[in-house]
């Protein structure tokens, strides 16, 4: 398989163990097999703290797997590549930079000349509707606006692979729905493959082509569901379709069990 036809992301028997401060080994992810095709939008759901985020750090190259392989575009991941974009749960924007300068950061880090970086940043700011805010500092923006800055700063690098770690979980419900629609619009033009980690099942079905259910930690793939809802979607409307409710029930019967296991473990830990 060459790099043209290989899937965007492949995890083969990947495991990751961390050493905890008390010295014991904690296995976050165990024996994970997952393939994500090019241009696919995959949502990963699982109980809290099961190791969903670890999967993303493995793909991004921020962490190396203890065992197994992680391939991006057919190539094993060695450190942080230039194909990947990452949107964090907290808005990881530079508070001392203006909005424009924040969005310019990626191209500038990669050695793009200033005028070109500025032009590209302005283009993406226009797409997220923040053109008139380019001279503001992040603390002068609302949570949703900061998230838009983070999205623009990620998309401006033209990532082939977009990793999102519960990006909208800190937003209020209405802003969240708006941001989800905006994300789908932004993504539609790029052809990027997306891995979207969330604990919100509704969000995952509304956004994704495939929903991956993880087991209670150490995380591994339990089941993969094809969503098959037509695109373009509007998050608020798609929620009302009978097919949505049907899939929701189906996935929840799988996910609910893992959530219950996690909860019982938590109860044991407390006891």
């Amino acid at each position, binding site marked *: 398989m060459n790099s043209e036809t290989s899937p965007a992301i492949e995890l083969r028997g990947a495991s990751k163990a961390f050493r905890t401060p008390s010295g014991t080994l904690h296995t976050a992810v165990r024996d994970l097999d997952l393939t994500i095709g090019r241009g696919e939008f995959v949502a990963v759901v699982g109980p809290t703290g099961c190791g969903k985020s670890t999967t993303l750090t493995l793909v991004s190259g921020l962490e190396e797997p203890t065992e197994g392989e992680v391939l991006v575009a057919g190539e094993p991941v060695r450190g942080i590549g230039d194909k990947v974009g*990452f949107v964090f749960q907290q808005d990881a924007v*530079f508070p001392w930079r203006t909005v424009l300068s924040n969005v310019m*950061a990626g191209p500038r*880090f990669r050695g793009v000349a200033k005028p070109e970086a500025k032009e590209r940043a302005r283009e993406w700011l226009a797409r997220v509707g923040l053109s008139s805010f380019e001279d503001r500092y992040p603390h002068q923006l609302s949570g949703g606006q900061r998230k838009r800055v983070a999205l623009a700063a990620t998309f401006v*690098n033209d990532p082939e692979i977009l990793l999102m770690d519960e990006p909208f979980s800190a937003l209020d419900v209405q802003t969240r729905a708006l941001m989800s629609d905006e994300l789908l619009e932004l993504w539609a033009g790029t052809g990027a493959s997306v891995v979207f980690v969330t604990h919100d099942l509704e969000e995952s079905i509304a956004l994704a082509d495939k929903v991956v259910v993880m087991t209670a930690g150490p995380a591994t793939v339990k089941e993969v569901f094809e969503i098959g809802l037509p695109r373009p979607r509007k998050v608020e409307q798609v929620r009302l379709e009978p097919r949505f409710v049907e899939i929701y029930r189906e996935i929840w019967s799988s996910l609910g069990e893992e959530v219950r296991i996690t909860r019982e473990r938590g109860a044991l830990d407390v006891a």
Partner: protein
Amino acid sequence: MSPDTVTASAAVIGTDRARARARAARNRTYLVTGSRIAVLLAVVGLWEWLARTAVIDPFNFSMPSKIWDQIRTWVVDGTAQGSLWEQIWYTLYEALLGWVIGVFAGVVLGIALGRVRFAADVLGPYIKVLNALPRIVLAPIFLIWFGLGPASKVASAVVLVFFPVFFNAFQGAREVDRDLVANSRILGASNRQVTLQVVIPSATSWIFTSLHVSFGFALIGAIVGEYIGATKGLGLLVAASQGTFNAAGVYAAMVILAIVALLAEGLLTFLEKRLFRWKPAEAGSAR
């Protein structure tokens, strides 16, 4: 009443209230300033009165009028060591130079050790030992090494300034938001870019807190150095006044020092405000 007049009268009441509030705020400012002046006058007046009626010994404690005379004499006729401005300039020069060198060394080493784990592990204990030493005792050694000139005072200012700045820069570099570093690395930043464009900017607020304190330390270093042995400077004025049992001279030098320190502090605050425009205003403080 028609709706128009209702809104109109509401607006009048609104502006009346706003005006009353503004007046109350102004009155409070006057009251605070007035009380401050009253406290100063009371303390100075009491001191003067106690010294004149010989309740406290004017020879030991001097009195405000004598201190004022002393300052005037220094300003008009100069001191025994030369003009007063020259003494102030010498002390400021030594403190500033020591401060700049100390801050520079502290920031560079603090950031470097904060970034390079290995260096921090190796050098950590030595830095702790050096910090535990009461560094002011180094001043006599510097006098032996560098002589009576400014160099020995600069050196004692440097060792006093270095450590607080170093520890703050170190802490600042260690406590950079991990997500922010991860994000910039994914955006394409090299290690160097992370240090220069992520770690140093996030550590600046830590560093700046130490700059305020450390300028005071630089002044202490310069003054103590001059006090122990010098040819010029405010510390020498203190030492000389003490040598001639001139209590007023000691107090006068202290007053001058306080003014110099306050001016320097004001300048630093001004610079900080310019540099930290990206920070949200603190709750309750007017921008």
